[in-house]
């Protein structure tokens, strides 16, 4: 099953490489990984999406917790949560394609953020499925370049991940 694990990490050199090293060392899989500082400058927040049986996920969270620099973590998929990913796409856009693409972008609530005579650059945010859905809708033939940020997530409601 796919999981989103969110981690508060000491904002120190080498901490990230320990997390990444753990995944490769123990043969766990990483689908996406994002990391950035938080409002508390001593902490980074890292989000990793991974897949595995319940047993593997349990080991992943335990092994992560064992890393000295991991302060706290939560498996967001255990409760209701919001998940977002940002995507920038360059699409070939000429002639009648331009109107068609514009319509699809609107349906997906995206924005055209840059335009040339033959190319649209589109920004889209949402969960990973929505982003996949957009690429499917416009068809891979016209796609020139895709860049995705990887997943970030946060729990719904009152629950917070903090120290």
């Amino acid at each position: 099953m796919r999981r989103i694990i969110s981690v508060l990490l000491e904002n120190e050199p080498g901490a990230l490489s320990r997390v990444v090293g753990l995944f490769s060392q123990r043969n766990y899989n990483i689908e996406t990984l994002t990391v950035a500082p938080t409002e508390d400058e001593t902490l980074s927040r890292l989000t990793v999406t991974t897949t595995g049986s319940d047993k593997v996920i349990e080991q992943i969270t335990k092994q992560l917790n064992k890393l000295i620099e991991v302060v706290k973590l939560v498996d967001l998929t255990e409760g209701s949560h919001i998940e977002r990913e940002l995507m920038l796409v360059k699409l070939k856009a000429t002639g009648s394609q331009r109107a068609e693409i514009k319509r699809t972008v609107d349906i997906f609530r995206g924005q055209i953020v840059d335009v040339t005579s033959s190319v649209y650059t589109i920004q889209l945010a949402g969960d990973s499925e929505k982003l996949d859905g957009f690429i499917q809708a416009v068809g891979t033939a016209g796609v020139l370049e895709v860049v995705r940020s990887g997943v970030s997530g946060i729990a719904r409601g009152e629950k917070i991940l903090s120290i």
Partner: protein
Amino acid sequence: MELLSGADMLIRSLQDEGIEYIYGYPGGAALHIYDALFRQDKVKHILVRHEQAAVHMADGYARATGKPGTVLVTSGPGATNTITGIATAFMDSIPMVVLCGQVASTLIGEDAFQETDMIGVSRPVVKHNLSVRHPEEIPEVIRKAYYIAATGRPGPVVVDIPKDMTTPNERYEYSYPKKVKLRSYNPAVRGHAGQIKKAVDMLLAAKRPMIYAGGGVILGQASDQLIELTRMLGYPITNTLMGIGCYPATDKQHLGWLGMHGTYESNMAMHHSDLILCVGARFDDRVTNATEKFCPGARIVHIDIDPASISKTIEADVPIVGPVDAVLKEMIALVKESKEKPDAEALSAWWKQIEEWRAFHGMRYETSSDAIKPQEVIEALWRLTNGEAYVASDVGQHQMFAAQYYKFDKPNRWINSGGLGTMGFGLPAAMGVKLTHPDAEVLCVTGEGSIQMNIQELSTCKQYDLPVKIVNLNNQALGMVKQWQDMNYESRHSQSYMESLPDFIKLAEAYGHVGIRIEKREDLEPKLKEALAMKDKLVFLDIYVDRFEHVYPMQVARGSMKDMWLSKTERV
């Protein structure tokens, strides 16, 4: 406040940490530190002949005393030479701090002379590693390193020290922190009361209980509690290779150790049990055999300080995270006050069954009228040392024979590389033990393959007068490899012979020690006695043993715990 250079602060920190010995080897990046070491006499430095040996010495010291060992090496090759030793300690959760010189911080990343990314190289085999970024941090970094190494599930910690952190004429205020606090590291101090209660209820209701103890009992200094609980309940107990000595081997409730080369009765009792109380062990593959066939009727209570050890390979029914001594203490109290008592009838039927298993095999081997059997060498050593020796072992058949036939009644006396299985561990580990227990009998049981992996340390033994007794069970082969080739590769002995062995007697003498060769069975006891009588001499005993011997019992690959070879021809 005192003003000290980084190098002096480092050494002062070690003094304030109460460190008696450092094992190490100097080089460019560590020279400021070595100079600071020279100008004091509280911390004693032992100069090894290879950095790997320094780590194994620190490891042997830690296993025998329970205190963290300390290593000091230079950058680059000095640091990388420690990796096998660090990995050995990591696999067996041995506390130690490895201080590594590093090129100056201004040179890092430039492929400077003797620059290696030791933080990166060591990362997968350490509990943690730390870099010094400012000289003022040194006392705190050192305190943190020992704190992390020795608490929770212990393990090795590497400290990387760029040369400019130890510059002699730059001085800083020194004070050694009494305590460190790490918001992200809080090992459990006690187990969950509800879980402990549940475990005790299950223990008392069991019909065919088994206690399975591991190295965690020794690391957690919980032998007394384990013995008390086991005796109180009257239940059978086994332990892992790493747990040897945590419960007296000569006690009647003890079934010997378990797993790949464990006793028949331990493996049978595990397989047929209905409740397993696992204390500080980790269900590793050398114990469980095929996990899907593991102990089909058993419910499992698992106590461990490391939550990640629980339900990693075998799912626990009742997980208890906590220090084993504290948890066992609580269990003892609950058993005492409980109205329930162990089921006497079920227990006596269970013991009857176990005694039948014990009688059926009971660690037998065939003796011969002429060839010396490796097992009888170990039995003789056990008798002649009254079972009181510290035995450091290398890796191979000799290791298994030593573990099987030397009956350890006390913890911290069996010193071996169980998790990594590092050939070359034995001699330096024995040296680390002897240094700290000069009056104790310290044996190094080894093979002619393993001993040659760190034989240069005979020179260190001479320098520091470390009269260990080296017992080389010379079967003229990489015996354990050869055994597997006999069993799985139709005896094609690919590269498992050691041709052109050195004359170990002359070699020992060349290093200034005594060598004794034993080739005849009738010479065995008298010559062992002769060697043991030379209290202040290192004696290298080169004992020619039966070249064809295999280690049994041996679990059948991919079978359950009860599937074993008992000799070359009997399989159950």
